[in-house]
């Protein structure tokens, strides 16, 4: 049971406030924001209480999505609902930001009104909701894939131009109804890989959490078939065949996915509703089919002038055709580090010392497979002792790998029925 729902910007501006039960009056929003700002860290706990008011919140799109509730309600339900609500808002408004919420507040009130009545969740299915929602979304920057068609330089149809920016899917689902013709469907395979490598180069832990998401703008799509790799196997017990079998530990599907062809042909059948859905989630731990995409070779020493020298070599083990983007290495450095001088191997890279997080962040916008980059950092640390060297590391590395999955999972085909009129175009989207 939910008493109130409100959305706050990270600066505490009230964006949306709805009281469903009129029981816990007063300034709940103010109380919540006071509690958030009273904390030192930037990560307030998920559940906070104040005089019988229980706040549960999630952070999505830089906003606080808060529900107040009773102590005995299910945290799983409320957090799932708040996440679902933010996903709905994203579907309807195109993207999730303070600006889009501000522009579409009437639509969000309408959504909330239909989704929750008297604190009880009624429905969050976009198929049901679309019959009730009347307000038009206001989109700040409409984008269509068709704008891309003439991107090619001098009319050359390059492979590059087939890559749509990630903003391609950030437009409201509702507008497709009026504008017509823009029947688009996005199928994303997203994998989050977390790997821990010991100082001796040993792989300590490797986890891949993947999902297949479908974002559908088709007004009337009766059935869709997604074909996965045929060698896709689940669980540890199955024997691996020759060749590039794709194996994951656990798989779960959205409830609307029909699996009658899954066992034989690895085909998912579903009738996507408008908006974004997580069709399939899977996990793989410990046993990666390929080597991790990066190797780091660090050397750390003290020079005669009492400075800390860090010489880092980073190698990208991807195939030469692919590349990692937005690579950022975070190197924790000793407390009290004053200044940083750097030698990087190319001008598009950058490095910065962030004193509040006590780390050097080394950014590489694009990193092609097979390349090796190196960097030399010299840190001025007053009172550097041998013990301070213990504070250096572990190095964290975050990156995006477009068009590549760690598990090797691929979408073989995507078939829609009824067959859409007109020529269809395929795009690959950069995350």
């Amino acid at each position, binding site marked *: 049971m939910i008493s109130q729902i409100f959305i706050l910007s990270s600066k505490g501006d009230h964006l949306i406030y709805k009281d469903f039960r009129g029981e816990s009056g007063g300034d709940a929003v103010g109380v919540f924001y006071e509690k958030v700002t009273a904390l030192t860290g930037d990560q307030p706990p998920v559940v906070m209480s104040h005089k019988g008011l229980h706040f549960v919140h999630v952070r999505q799109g830089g906003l606080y999505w808060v529900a107040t509730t009773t102590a005995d309600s299910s*945290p799983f339900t409320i957090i799932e609902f708040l996440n679902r609500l933010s996903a709905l808002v994203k579907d309807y408004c195109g993207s999730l930001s303070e600006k889009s919420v501000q522009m579409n507040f*009437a639509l969000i009130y309408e959504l909330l009104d239909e989704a929750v009545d008297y604190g009880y969740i009624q429905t969050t299915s976009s198929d049901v909701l679309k019959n009730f929602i009347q307000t038009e979304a206001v989109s700040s920057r409409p984008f269509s894939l068709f704008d891309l068609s003439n991107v090619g330089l001098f009319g050359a149809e390059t492979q590059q131009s087939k890559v749509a920016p990630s903003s391609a899917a950030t437009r409201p689902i509702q507008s497709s109804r009026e504008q017509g013709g823009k029947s688009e469907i996005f199928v994303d395979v997203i994998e989050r890989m977390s790997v821990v490598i010991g100082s001796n180069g040993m792989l300590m832990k490797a986890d891949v959490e993947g999902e297949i998401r479908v974002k559908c703008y088709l007004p009337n799509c009766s059935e869709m078939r997604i074909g996965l790799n045929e060698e896709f196997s689940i669980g540890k017990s199955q024997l691996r065949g020759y060749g590039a079998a794709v194996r994951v530990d656990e798989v779960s599907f959205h409830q609307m996915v029909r699996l009658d062809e899954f066992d034989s042909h690895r085909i998912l059948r579903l009738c996507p509703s408008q908006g974004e859905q997580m069709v399939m989630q899977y996990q793989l731990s410990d046993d990666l089919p390929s080597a991790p995409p990066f190797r780091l070779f660090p050397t750390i020493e003290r020079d005669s002038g009492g400075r800390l020298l860090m010489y880092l070599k980073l190698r990208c083990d991807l195939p030469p055709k692919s590349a990692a983007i937005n690579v950022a290495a975070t190197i924790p450095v000793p407390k009290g580090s004053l200044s940083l001088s750097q030698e990087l191997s190319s001008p598009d890279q950058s490095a910065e010392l962030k004193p509040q997080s006590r780390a050097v962040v080394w950014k590489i916008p694009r990193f092609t497979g097979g390349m090796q980059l190196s960097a030399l950092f010299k840190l001025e640390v007053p009172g550097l002792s041998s013990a301070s060297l213990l504070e250096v590391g572990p190095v964290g590395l975050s990156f995006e790998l477009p068009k590549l999955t760690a598990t090797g999972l691929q979408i073989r085909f995507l078939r829609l029925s009824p067959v859409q009129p007109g020529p269809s175009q395929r795009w690959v989207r950069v995350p």
Partner: protein
Amino acid sequence: MPYLGGEETVRELRRALSNPNVQSDQLRYRNTILKVIRAMSQGVDMSGLFSEMVKACATVDVVQKKLVYVFLCSYAALNPELSLLVINTLRKDCQDPNPMVRSLALRNMTNLRLPSLVEYVEQPLAAGLRDRAACVRRVAVLGWAKLHNLQASSEIDAAVVNELYSLLRDPDPVVMVNCLRALEEILKDEGGVAINKPITHHLLNRLKECDIWGQCQVLRVLQRYRPQSEDELFDILSLLDASLVSPHPPIMAATLSLFLSLCSGQPAVSLAALERVRGPLLAACGSGSREMRFTALCHIQLLLRSIPGLMGAHYKRFFCGYAEPAYIKQRKMQVLVELVNDENVAMLLDELKGYCTDVNAETAQAAITAIGRIGRSYSDRCLEILTGLLGLKQDHITSAVVQTMRDLVWVCPQCSDTVCFALEGCEETLQDSQGRQALLWLLGVYGERVSSAPYTLEVFIDGVRSEASLGVKMELLTATMRLFLCRPAETQDMLGRLLHYCIEEETDMCVRDQALLYYRLLHCGIEETRKVLQGRRSDPSLGVLIGRPAEPVSQWARSFNTLEPLRQGSIETESVSRGSPEHTMFDPKPNADLSNTLDCSRIEKVHSDGDGRCSDSSADILASSVAAPLSLSLFPALSPEEFERLWLQQLALHAEQGNEMEKGYIVNNTSQRFSLSRSFPFIGQDLWLTRARRPAEKDEEAGKEDFVWMEECVRCPTIPRCSPQSLQAAMQLVNIQTLAFTPPQTLPWRVYLYTHTCLDDAPHSTLILGELLYTGEEPQKAEVHKGSADGGVGAEGIEDEQARQGMEATADGGQEAVKVTLRQQPRDDKALKGFLSILTTVLHTLSSERA
């Protein structure tokens, strides 16, 4: 965040709203209303525009209607009279051919929350229940709940309640679920909607039609159902099995909650259900939403309370992600501590070590505390890491390390050498009061082993004038006093200065009083002072027990799937609640420190409180023992090491002296005890005497010592299922100290205990060490058992009567008997007999309470 010039905005908007040109242009009218709502949600008071907005309500534009309703529902309570005007429009809308308009009107009519309007609302609501469109029925059903809460005094018509019950069979699943919700609210005083067999089966059959929110609601309501037979129960459970492993965490959690409440009488089934949700819960731990990950983690902590080994193989899933928020990292560390075992300890400590230098000071502190907790079982490795961290010379790390060391030494005194060595020089980096207090405590208690202790204290004493923290001053007083006791020459002068300052100049009453107390105490003589100040150096109670004993599921089942587990600090941080030495110093355990002796008359009372089911033999013994008044005492305290040394030495000697068979048993027994932590596959479920074991030192004198060794069987089958806490409490009541346990339900089940006896007519007191052993149903154990009883006959110092008793107990008690092995030093048969009778009585009393 009110706008500046909110008044101006209101005036301008009012002008626009009442402008006929705006009113005639639908788009402009709607945009003006939008501006009103926008200002409203930004916190500007728009109530002045109420009458203009009421007018705007009468329109054919649905979007505009919705916007106006948002406004009206927010401000209706401020303008009850004007709200009456809206009712007409709303009632008209309830007749609209469009079901969307009908449901909208009905919903907002009930959302106005005005008691004066109830009479106008009832009729459309009643009609709404029979509406053709499901969306109207959904709204109408909940409308009745709103109406009821608005006017709690007025009874809702019984006919309406009946109609709601019949709507449980509505074809629309949301209507059905809403009926449940409405009935729950309306019938709250009667305990909610009636959950009988037909309703339950109906709900279960339709569960699949509902969406996840509906399913959660139904599962929650069904928690009140009590199946009539076991067959029905298992039918329900198998029907719900698919939901238990649902990929949607809310459904999984709601189903598990239902399982736990249905199976409250069947612990085995509950445990099986917990095993089954392991997969889905772990998946939720890897969910994309970090709030969901956190929720799943908190609930995993609950599950671990009952099955400590549940996640053992998956410990890597709880390693912290690099960018995870601090609250997730701290929970993960709490889980990691629970999962530690021989195989993964190296890996785990390596990982935790990495977190100790985290940017977030709280995370670093949590990591250090976690290492300290693991140090109770793997002290050498952990101390090495902790000592290494001191080298960083960072104030928050040093402070956390010193506090952790203090807590560790309190439960594991054998670490004290390493700790004392590490303490040198860390006072320079310590900044916060908590850390300095910990350092002072350690210096006070182990002052004789830290060579620089007086100099460190002197620095503190010289700076006492500028000291702000009350706790540090008090701790400084105690530490200096303690150091004075063991190193008087070096400390006397500074103690004098400190006492002088505290008594003459200190303004805080607490500090001054404590200083005065110490001053007067010193007047009473050094022996008195020693008695008062040199208390325990370590926790005599559950210290040697590693990990937590498995709790029954019912302990936490109620808080599962509520906000409770997500609260900060809801999982008790044991290091604070149990180990903190100040806690025991300032607030001593009443039965441990204050009453060091207890007269036997209390035991009689205990006995008479229990029922008469004690066997006759024990009653006889009790009668005989009461004749010679016997009192037990815990003083002087015995450390686990001393206990172990005495016990093993005794066993060895006994083995040398005893016959072949006996020797076999005892050697067997000893080796079993040595390898305990390795011989059980599920680490975390069994007993671990955790200390690094020292081999029994065979003193030359030991052979000459006068001691007695006896074995006895007591029939009390339920004792091994007793919780360690209640056993310990009961034993402490009669001044028997329990030193180590296996968790309940494990086999073989053991308890080690000791006490001192003190007979009135005897010249000296004796020390009794004991072991309780319950081997369970295994046949070969039963043999050992019998053999041991025979051994009891052979052993010296056992009188015929007792031997016969032991035999009898073995004979009729069969495998249900608990074997008691006692060792007394020096020998005193009368006292031993008396002690045995007390012990038997306690066991019987506990046993009958359980039954």
